[in-house]
């Protein structure tokens, strides 16, 4: 039908040109006549091509907002994306599912103009588009909320948002717009606050508001819930569903299957840079999604039925630590017992004192005001990290490069640095390299660390492999107390399972294990008792069997649990929570 109107156009043009050509030809010299003839032919010819092209366009026209066709991208040594196809229409929440290193981030960066594809086409609103830069992407109507927020701590909310907008705008006007928009979508935000005073949830709101202000057609969200409490997640989902109803397309990146089940319509699954499938979420189970994501069925973790609790190995009493860093968190009245044979989990939103707690417990920070720490019934309050290690304490910090391992040093040296005393790797004041090398090789073998050899620098390992190495290094020293922060952050699902099993096994051998994590599913899975840290205050600990995600979420928000609590009427608790969060901010 389109062809008809096009050919009608064509014949009209033809008649017009012919008339002009004939008319002008009457009083022209031969050369001019010839030039006109050429012009005429040219116009006819190109007109024909244009018509053909527009016809082709119309054939491909569809209701998709964004279409990726055969997108490939490689980095030196890695094919990050291998001819990926993806289609999203307006009003759809589309999940991009995959493990770490599956190529999700690379793909999304190409849509947002940070990277350029090596081959393939990006079609936006039915036009083949080469997205040159993030600014260009924003102009087209693509907005993105990053996993690691792109925020500037020392600037205010409105300044931050203004930086993410393409067009210069009056800050006062913008502040007004922010307040309006944030009220409309239930994302309260004060435009004049400095970012460093805000909680992580509030920071994410900045990102979302910033995106919404641009009235985007497509919103990309990169693992937005990894930093939120379950209650905050719920609120976010309500907002996202509302936005989708208003016609916004959302590309939702995650590896959390439950979230995808409850939020998304369709899911595209990536594995090792290749597209596995695009499926409708409703027809799939979390199990089948996981199988597609990992290429194998995941065996459910078996929680031991009964554990035998031994003596108290780590005892912390009334610990008060004032933050060194003005933006850090002070710890207040920390009480904690960890017994032989149990895994104790500490939940909490990032930046609520987890790092501070770990560095005080492992002896890195000896600068505290009050309280005692006992290791194996010995007072260890004033002992430095090495002395604590000799008593049997091992720790794995959250930051792997630069805290858990020296980036430029090779694995052997890194193994030596924490293990030399317990494994007696020093012989007559000199490093016994033979012994150290054997020790390192054992770690690599036993924990299947992927590395060419033990001479590779720590920074050359991927995040997951380095974590396996660091945990292996600590476990091989057979500690009686092990403290781990974010044991599986950024580790792919298979390796994460191995790490969790190793921690459980260690506990069953009589080690006291303390796990600090933001991953609630993980804590629920491996810990025997669970508590949370909020604003530097540690909650009481409850047996995991009596807890669920919602209850832990309340602990994370600083609400003390009354276990008879009716969780359905949480109107008042919400108020409590906001009050408490306000306090945290003041305290910080």
């Amino acid at each position, binding site marked *: 039908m389109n062809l008809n109107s096009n050919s009608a156009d064509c014949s009209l043009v033809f008649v017009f040109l012919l008339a002009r050509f004939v008319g002008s030809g009457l009083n022209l010299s031969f050369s001019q006549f010839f030039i006109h003839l050429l012009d005429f032919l040219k116009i006819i010819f190109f007109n024909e091509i244009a018509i053909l092209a527009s016809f082709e366009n119309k054939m491909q026209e569809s209701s998709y907002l964004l279409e990726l066709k055969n997108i490939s991208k490689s980095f030196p040594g890695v094919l990050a994306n291998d001819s990926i196809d993806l289609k999203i229409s307006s009003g759809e929440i589309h999940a991009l599912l995959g493990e770490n290193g599956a190529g999700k981030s690379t793909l999304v960066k190409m849509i947002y103009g940070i990277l350029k594809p090596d081959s393939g086409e990006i079609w936006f609103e039915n036009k083949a588009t080469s997205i040159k830069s993030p600014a260009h992407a924003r102009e087209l109507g693509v907005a993105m909320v990053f996993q690691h927020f792109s925020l*500037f701590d020392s600037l205010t909310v409105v300044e931050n948002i203004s930086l993410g907008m393409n067009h210069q705008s009056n800050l006062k006007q913008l502040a007004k717009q922010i307040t309006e928009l944030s009220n409309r979508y239930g994302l309260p935000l004060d435009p004049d606050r400095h970012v460093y005073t805000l909680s992580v949830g509030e920071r994410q709101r900045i990102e979302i508001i910033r995106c919404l202000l641009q009235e985007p057609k497509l919103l990309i969200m990169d693992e937005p819930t990894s930093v939120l409490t379950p209650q905050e997640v719920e609120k976010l989902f309500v907002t996202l569903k509302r936005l989708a109803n208003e016609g916004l397309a959302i590309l939702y990146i995650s590896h959390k299957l439950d979230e995808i089940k409850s939020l998304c319509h369709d899911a595209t699954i990536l594995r090792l840079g290749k597209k596995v499938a695009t499926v409708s979420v409703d027809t799939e189970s979390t199990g089948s999604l996981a199988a597609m994501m990992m290429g194998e069925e995941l065996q459910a973790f078996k929680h031991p039925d009964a554990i035998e609790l031994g003596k108290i190995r780590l005892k912390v009493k009334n610990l008060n630590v004032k933050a060194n860093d003005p933006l850090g968190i002070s710890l207040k009245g920390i009480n904690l017992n960890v017994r032989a044979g149990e895994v104790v989990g500490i939940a909490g939103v990032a930046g609520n004192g987890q790092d501070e707690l770990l560095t005080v417990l492992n002896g890195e920070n000896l600068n505290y005001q009050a309280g005692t720490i006992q290791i194996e019934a010995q007072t260890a309050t004033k002992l430095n990290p090495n002395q604590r290690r000799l008593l049997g304490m091992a720790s794995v910090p959250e930051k792997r490069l630069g805290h858990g391992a020296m980036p430029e040093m090779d694995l052997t040296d890194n193994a030596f640095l924490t293990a030399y005393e317990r494994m007696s790797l020093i012989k007559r004041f000199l490093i016994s390299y033979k012994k150290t090398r054997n020790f390192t090789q054992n770690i690599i073998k036993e924990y299947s660390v992927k590395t060419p050899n033990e001479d590779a620098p720590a920074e050359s390992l991927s995040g997951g492999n380095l974590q396996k190495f660091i945990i292996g290094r600590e476990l091989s020293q057979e500690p009686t107390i092990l403290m781990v922060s974010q044991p599986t952050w950024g580790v792919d699902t298979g390796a994460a399972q191995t790490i969790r099993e190793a921690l459980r096994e260690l506990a069953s051998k009589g080690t006291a294990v303390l796990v600090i994590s933001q991953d609630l599913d993980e804590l629920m899975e491996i810990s025997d008792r669970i508590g949370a840290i909020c604003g530097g205050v540690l909650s009481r600990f409850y047996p995991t069997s009596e807890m669920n995600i919602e209850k832990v979420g309340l602990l994370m928000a600083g609400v003390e649990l009354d276990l008879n609590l009716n969780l359905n009427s949480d109107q008042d608790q919400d108020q409590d929570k906001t009050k408490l969060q306000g306090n945290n901010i003041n305290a910080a």
Partner: protein
Amino acid sequence: MDILIPAILTIITAATPLLFAALGELVTEKSGVLNLGVEGMMIMGAVIGFVVVHYTGSSVLAILASMLAGALLATVFAMLILVFHASQVPTGLALTIFGLGLSALIGQSMIGIAYDGIPKISIPVLSELPIIGEIFFHQDILVYLSLLMVIVVWWFLNKTRSGLILRAVGDSHDAAHAMGYSVFKIRLLATLFGGAMAGVGGAYLSLSYSPLWVEGMTAGRGWIALALVVFASWRVGRVLLGAYLFGGITILQLHAQALGIGIPSQVMSMLPYLATIVVLVLISRDKKQIKLNAPASLGKAFQPSR
């Protein structure tokens, strides 16, 4: 009064070179670049300014040339740290040593030549006012320029979008990059501006403060300018205050000696440096202010990740 007016006048002249160099360095540091080569860029400005005024007789040309000289040296620094990702601290130190050496080479034939100094500009009517007139409205163009730059830099950093972007790059280069701002371009421009300002600061020394060329005539002023930026916790108003405070202390020894106060001149020469340390210690007690104003990515190399 007879002592006060010349004292205030000398404070202004002592403060002006510091003000230029510190304002420039402030902008550079706000973008996240720590350029320790201020001393080197200042002295290059000083020698080039003097050479140009000697051969052309034009003080305007001399000032422009000194800006260019400072900026050129800053370009070398910027290339090393932004393109080759060299560490900023040693590169800055090398820049200072390089500048001192090169300026000595260039200025070899200039030693012992005198110059009248750039002319003072009297602002009509206002300069007739008693006391104030002589202090504020009978100065050379560089003094006026330095005070104008205080306002311009403050306005630029706090009121313009470009200033906001510059501060953002200094706060988190990764976030700025993710938003599509060119960290390289912004840092390059900020470094060049810092170099040009240090160059003018140096030119003020050889064209006005003591209009002649002496090897190493900056005498550590570049370092004081660096300290000033920290002392001012990266705030423009405080840089102004600090520059005049340090200027005042520097000049104190001359007038104290003239008055016959029996303190050894060596002790007096130590004063500005001592004051720097004391003030730094006092100021750094308020960690929150520093954390809020200090560019968080100061001195960190930026390599965009994939």
